[in-house]
């Protein structure tokens, strides 16, 4: 619904009660990232640890969610078990439209239930149901049971956690509608610590649209632009998996714990190979006609002579990089098998793949022993990795419990920090150069999507420190407005400022439409202020030695320049967070 305030449902799991809060400030906080930050300021405990029951887990959508195509994502914000600071993770599925049609701009969950529960909400109901019998169940089984227990097939979103979230792993994600995830920085543990196994959001409300034909006409124009572009063809065709061959050719694909950046064997797991051999179908987030989600299949012979079962597994570039290239596994079906195990245990796939790549090298170098890893980890040995993923999710022994808190923490204890592929958190799949490494290491979400550092590396031959930092800051500022809207970032080439302003105008957000630039600056500043207030010191972030030994298509990395860039960007982040308060 179009309104200047935000309608927020607050649910306290300790008391089992909810309340609806109205928060002013549409033209300041916008929604998504901005709204989540405002809600964390209001309900979060800056100085208390992530697992304090009072800490909120926040889900926020944007002002145009549902009103225009690809306004289809949700921002999840929480204090992260990974670094005990404020964090965001983003996902799509049906979560955004379900919140819209539940007539909510945001959901905030605080407190801790005394036993495992599922929260079910909609435009006309709120229920907290005891689901203790689901504790320990995998993500797939949990989804199926929740689907049966609550009504509303097709017009709802089902969020749930697996074993990793229940056990408090800092690598635990939240599964959204089977194929999407709030993957990074431990959102699954933020739910698990509250005894919150699942959330079902029923989108059962409807709203009037603006009078006149202008809105529908603009919708048609935006729809046309989004479905006509070449960029969208990429996401619809091979999907993000197309990048595997591209990055391998560029010598920018992290392989075998970033010991290599290119390898002919990678030809086995390119987007083209996945499409040819294992692609079943595409699917989409609700409200997105692009349909970038690629679902592959893996079948298993469970009995001779010809008894099989099959599983469907969604794949993308990042999961292929993490469970394929990083682990040296180059068969699509073997990669899908590892991904599925990660999925079912509720781990974040990028974190898990990179952590296990480090563990493999650490075992090979004798830094850890097989009594730690429990299995003889070996690059390329897919079957070993599926078992290891379960150990990582369950925290079977001291080694896996520590590794599940972050590769850097395990490396600090056992050794091998120089080859831990950690940039703020386990790296994303871009060994493109100094600017990306610094961008992910220091960036707000420690994500490749915080700003386009990987693209800067590819476009700019000779890096100028001031220009690079200016680019990172400016690009982040544009993206924080997009993630406050909350647009899928794949559509960032279409949803330029002018078009966003036009869309905002068409539904009546005139003030916001006219102040996009100033509002973006404010969003960026406030988000950094919160991150800094929860303990972030960008100057303390280190970039492990492995990243200085990488060679890309440009040649070897320049470690001195990388370090100067790191210091420069760290200083800039501190300035950004000081601006308003200073």
């Amino acid at each position, binding site marked *: 619904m179009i309104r200047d305030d935000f309608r927020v449902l607050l649910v306290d799991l300790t008391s089992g009660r909810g309340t609806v809060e109205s928060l002013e400030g549409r033209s300041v906080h916008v929604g998504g990232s901005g709204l989540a930050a405002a809600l964390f300021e209001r309900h979060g405990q800056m100085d208390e640890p992530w697992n304090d029951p009072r800490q909120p887990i926040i889900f926020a959508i944007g002002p145009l969610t549902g009103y225009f195509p690809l306004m289809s994502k949700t921002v999840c914000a929480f204090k992260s078990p990974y670094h005990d600071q404020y964090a965001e993770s983003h996902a799509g599925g049906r979560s955004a439209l379900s919140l819209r049609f539940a007539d909510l701009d945001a959901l905030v969950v605080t407190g801790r239930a005394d036993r495992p529960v599922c929260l079910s909400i909609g435009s006309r109901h709120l229920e907290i149901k005891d689901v203790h019998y689901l504790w320990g169940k995998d993500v797939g089984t949990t*989804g199926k049971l929740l689907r049966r227990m609550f009504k509303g097939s097709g*017009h709802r979103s089902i969020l749930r956690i697996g074993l990793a979230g229940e056990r408090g792993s800092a690598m635990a994600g939240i599964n959204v509608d*089977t194929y999407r995830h709030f993957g990074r920085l431990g959102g699954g543990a933020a739910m698990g610590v509250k005894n919150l196994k699942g959330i079902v959001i029923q989108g059962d409300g409807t709203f009037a649209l603006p009078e006149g034909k202008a809105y529908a006409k603009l919708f048609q124009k935006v*729809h046309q632009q989004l479905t006509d572009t070449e960029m969208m063809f990429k996401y619809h065709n091979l999907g993000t998996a197309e990048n595997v061959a591209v990055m391998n050719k560029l010598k920018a694909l992290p392989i075998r714990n970033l010991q290599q950046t290119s390898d002919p064997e990678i030809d086995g797991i390119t987007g083209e190979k996945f499409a040819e051999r294992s692609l079943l179908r595409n699917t989409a987030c609700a409200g997105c*006609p*692009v349909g970038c989600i690629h679902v592959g299949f893996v079948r298993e012979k469970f009995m001779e002579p010809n008894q099989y079962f099959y599983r469907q597994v969604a794949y993308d570039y990042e999961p292929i990089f993490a469970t394929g290239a990083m682990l040296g596994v180059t068969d699509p079906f073997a990669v899908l098998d590892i991904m599925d195990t990660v999925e079912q245990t509720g781990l974040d796939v990028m974190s898990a793949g990179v952590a296990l790549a480090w563990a493999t090298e650490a075992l090979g170098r004798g830094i850890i022993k097989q009594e730690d890893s429990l299995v003889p980890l070996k690059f390329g040995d897919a079957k070993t990795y599926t078992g290891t993923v379960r150990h990582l999710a369950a925290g079977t022994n001291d080694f896996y419990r520590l590794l599940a808190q972050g590769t850097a923490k395990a490396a600090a204890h056992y050794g091998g920090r120089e080859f831990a592929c950690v940039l703020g958190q386990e790296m994303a799949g871009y060994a493109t150069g100094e600017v990306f490494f610094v961008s992910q290491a220091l960036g707000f979400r420690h994500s490749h999507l915080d700003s386009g550092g990987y693209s800067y590396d590819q476009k700019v031959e000779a890096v100028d420190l001031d220009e690079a930092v200016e680019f990172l800051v400016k690009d982040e500022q544009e993206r924080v407005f997009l993630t406050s809207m909350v647009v899928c970032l794949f559509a960032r080439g279409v949803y330029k400022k002018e078009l966003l302003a036009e869309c905002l105008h068409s539904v009546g957000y005139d003030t916001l439409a006219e102040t996009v630039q100033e509002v973006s600056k404010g969003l960026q500043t406030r988000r950094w202020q919160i991150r800094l207030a929860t303990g972030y010191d960008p100057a303390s972030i280190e970039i492990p030695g492995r990243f200085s030994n990488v060679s890309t298509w440009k040649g070897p990395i320049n470690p001195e320049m990388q370090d100067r860039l790191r210091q420069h960007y760290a200083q800039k982040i501190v300035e950004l967070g000081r601006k308003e308060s200073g």
Partner: protein
Amino acid sequence: MKILTTPRMERCIGCHACSLACARLVHKRLSWDTAGIRILSSGGLSTGFEAKPCYACDPAPCAAVCPTGAYTQRKGGGVMVKKNLCIRCGACDAACPVDAIYLDPMGEPFVCIHCGRCVPFCPHDCLEMVDVPGTSDPKEESKEAAS
């Protein structure tokens, strides 16, 4: 006369663009419910999607039970709806054998009028308007488009 059909639902990606278009263009609402076509997963997302359209019954049981004449038989199948005659009794919904009618919380019914405005929004060409044999009367078609 043409009717809306859903011959290629195995291609559906669950974007809901059809439902949203119907709600937006025909019923002037933001909704995935108040639409003449609704999409749901057929037993969970891993089994794909199915549509809940109107199958253009002739005679239409919903029109037969409507006590006020709000629903009348449409030539070629399906119904014509006059919302101002509707008393929100819900009889149409109860009579529909395929759950094609959605009643909003106030009891207002929403059903496909076979106008085809959802069709161009489907990115995978799942939907199609088809001629009903023996009903191609241009006068009737223009009357229908205006209703």
